[in-house]
């Protein structure tokens, strides 16, 4: 055993200039030190803006200008990496330090076959050529758990799944037998079942090839399954470090504790996330009457509010001269019903048709077959236009992408009240104060109603989206992955808000997510979907504790296990 660590970073500071003179700077990394021993997997955890990716880039000399390495040292095998020339870095990258990107589809070259790309990496870094290189390529793919390795060599990236592509990226990364691999969110773009097996491969490679791995991720579950040692960063500053179990379960710092409390658990359902410093909401009185009007109906009685019977959706590719149109069934014969006041979750991997169901209920997509009955009436059968409008407006939606769900040219307040004014639900004179009240209701500042969307963060924009939906006094809100674009602490706050609003306004929620843990925390009943079919439909406890369908079980097994904070 030698005592020199494989990689050692001391007091690293990286800055971005905030103005053209460079007098004002943003410290992307502030005095960061870390150490990696050979064969060790360390995790770097933090929310967006924490500077996790900047560390990886700084090690390889890949900082994008105008970012600047101001001070500190990086030593790899005892040699300093600070101030190396581009040529020296090039002999290091790929050869001794590998890099794995977040999205395998963009990391691979779409016009070259897998074989060409793997052998290219081999020929660049070793003496093997021709047949030898090809045999070595097959070996590498097999080591990275790529099935049918020999056949895959002729394939192009688009013919393979995301998980397979990521494995091929692994194979390329280990071609030159590097000592260290920096993996930047390697599984974020993958579905949960794929994620767990890809992580297994990563661990196996680390052990068999004795490669140290720096795993950069925002996902606490992934860290708890893979890493030996964890660093927690926030806004470029070091918060906490230590053995994984210790940091995740008995964190010393306030920030780490609140971060861990925000992680939705799959093991048990909590009433709400126990966030330490959640601000108490300022009361509103002016427009509460408007918002709560028509809500006298008893919502404790389990009346069905929405009934979906055998709906299907078929998409067609446009027919051309050479090819007839092709049908793709996104949703097949799905039936379910939602009772007043409850939250029903639809969970499934990408392409399972879960969002399409919601879009059909909202009227954004035509229903190919079957029908949707809301409050006892099929929307398409209502002839009275006023009744039809009221019906429409009582179903609202919270969208997935906070960065595109608000009109960028309208202020937050206008975004919230524009439709209300159009439909004359409110007096235009009251629009502004109603918008302000709604802003307060969703936990934003009253005066921020005059700001344009670009001055809000993702979580705040999502709150504006919720305020917009509430303005219509809906009974039913379709939540389309409302937190998938947000950091985990922001997600926890938002989910708490949704629960509060649901109680206050007796809302019924249909909650779509790919994240089982979020569904576990939010929903009373759960529908599991795969390839357009509803496989299982049951209560929260039944689905998560006694899953019947094999697919549900495999989904649950694939979830990274994180026990949550130790109870003290």
């Amino acid at each position: 055993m030698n005592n020199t660590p494989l990689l050692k970073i001391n007091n690293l500071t990286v800055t971005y200039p905030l103005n053209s003179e460079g007098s004002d700077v943003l410290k992307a990394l502030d005095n960061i030190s870390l150490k990696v021993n050979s064969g060790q997997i360390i995790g770097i955890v933090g929310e967006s803006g924490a500077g996790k990716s900047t560390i990886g880039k700084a090690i390889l000399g890949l900082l994008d200008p105008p970012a600047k390495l101001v001070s500190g040292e990086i030593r790899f095998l005892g040699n300093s990496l600070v101030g190396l020339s581009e040529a020296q870095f090039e002999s290091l990258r790929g050869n001794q330090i590998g890099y794995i990107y977040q999205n395998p589809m963009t990391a691979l070259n779409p016009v070259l076959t897998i074989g060409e790309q793997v052998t290219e990496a081999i020929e660049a870094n070793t003496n093997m050529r021709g047949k030898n290189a090809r045999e070595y390529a097959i070996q590498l793919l097999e080591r990275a758990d790529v099935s049918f390795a020999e056949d895959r060599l002729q394939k192009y990236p688009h013919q393979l799944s995301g998980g397979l592509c990521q494995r091929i990226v692994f194979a390329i990364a280990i071609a030159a037998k590097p000592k260290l691999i920096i993996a930047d969110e390697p599984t974020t773009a993958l579905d949960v079942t794929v994620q767990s097996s890809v992580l297994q491969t990563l661990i196996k490679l680390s052990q068999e090839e004795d490669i140290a791995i720096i795993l950069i991720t925002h996902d606490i579950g992934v860290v708890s399954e893979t890493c030996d040692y964890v660093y927690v960063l926030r806004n470029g500053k070091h918060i906490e470090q230590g053995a994984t179990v210790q940091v995740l379960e008995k964190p010393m710092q306030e920030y780490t504790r609140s971060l861990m409390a925000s992680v939705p658990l799959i093991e048990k359902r909590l009433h709400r996330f126990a966030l330490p410093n959640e601000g108490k909401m300022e009361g509103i009185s002016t427009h509460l009457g408007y918002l709560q009007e028509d809500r006298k109906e008893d919502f404790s009685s389990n009346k069905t509010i929405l009934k979906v019977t055998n709906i299907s959706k078929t998409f067609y590719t446009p027919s051309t001269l050479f090819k007839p149109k092709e049908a793709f069934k996104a949703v097949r014969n799905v039936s379910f019903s939602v009772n007043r006041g409850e939250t029903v979750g639809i969970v499934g991997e990408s392409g399972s048709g879960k969002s399409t169901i919601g879009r059909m209920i909202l009227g954004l997509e035509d229903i190919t077959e079957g029908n949707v009955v809301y409050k006892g009436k099929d929307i398409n059968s209502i002839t009275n236009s006023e009744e039809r409008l009221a019906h429409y407006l009582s179903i609202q939606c919270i969208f997935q992408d906070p960065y595109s769900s608000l009109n960028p040219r309208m202020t937050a307040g206008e975004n919230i009240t524009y439709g209300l004014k159009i439909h004359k639900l409110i007096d235009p004179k009251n629009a502004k104060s109603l918008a302000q009240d709604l802003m307060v209701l969703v936990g934003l500042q009253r005066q921020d109603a005059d700001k344009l969307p670009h001055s809000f963060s993702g979580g705040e924009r999502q709150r504006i989206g919720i305020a917009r939906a509430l303005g219509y006094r809906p009974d039913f809100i379709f939540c389309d992955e409302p937190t998938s674009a947000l950091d985990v602490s922001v997600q926890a706050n938002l989910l708490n808000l949704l629960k509060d609003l649901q109680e206050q306004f007796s809302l019924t929620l249909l909650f779509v997510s790919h994240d089982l843990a979020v569904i576990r925390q939010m929903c009373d009943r759960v529908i599991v979907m795969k390839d357009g079919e509803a496989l299982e439909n049951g209560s929260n406890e039944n689905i998560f504790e006694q899953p019947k369908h094999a697919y549900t079980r495999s989904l649950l097994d694939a979830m990274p296990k994180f026990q949550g904070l130790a109870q003290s």
Partner: protein
Amino acid sequence: MIDYKKKLVTLSLQIKSIFSGHPIAIAGLIGFVIFVLTALLAPWIAPQNPYDLMVLDIMDGLLPPLSKLGNGTTSWLGTDAVGRDILSAVMYGLRLSLFVAFMATTVGSIIGVFLGLLAAVKGGWVESVIMRAVDLKVSFPGILLALMMLAIFGTGVDKIIYALIIGVWASKARLTRSSALSEMQKEYIDAARISAIPNWRIMLKFLLPNSIAPVLVMIPMSLSGCIGAEATLSFLGVGVPITEPSLGLLIANGNDYLLSGKWWISIFPGVVLVSLVLCINVVADRIREHNNPFLKSMNMQ
């Protein structure tokens, strides 16, 4: 309700951020402003009204620059065959050329943007009809189309504006449609649709402000294109009527005298035309560069 003062401040800041540090673009902008002011103020600052036949004296015909006229004034840029002061004629010509180009660009862009939005929102046969019309227009050489139009409808200031509008609208429609289509993928449009906001409001309040930026960037280009096209048509004699000479017509007038050494009749309007188009193009290039981060980053390296 709208705070115009605040908007004016933001606009001037925006103009400053576009032009600061780019001396050539600033020079272009100043030049363009001077040309526009000259055109607007021509009736008051021109030494002579070139349309008023009473002030023209045939005895002053074909005088070189800096000559004294019969009424004792100096003709700085010389006179043409009928004794018209070239400086005054150029000022009035500039006025007409700019008017025609402004009208054609504005009306053409409005029509184009509207049709582009309509195509994007309606889809189906409406979109097909509009976009095939665009294809048809684009497949003709612009100048040929304008010549045909003018041959059919006759000449006149209004007719040439129509002919230029035909040239302007198609590219704007195509551009607006493509940027509106990408906006329509965004969730705020879905949010408006589930709130049953009527299509025309979605077009005006949601799509228009968010998809018009690329069209605005193209407008200066189209303005200089229209000035050039109008000059070409007038030079060919199918443009503005001979009684209201534009820059192109002035150049055509002097064309016959070029070989006999009377160069000033054509050259001065020509110089003004070239510098006007140059000024606009320099400004247009800068605006385009400012709005396209890709071009900007290429310049930085």
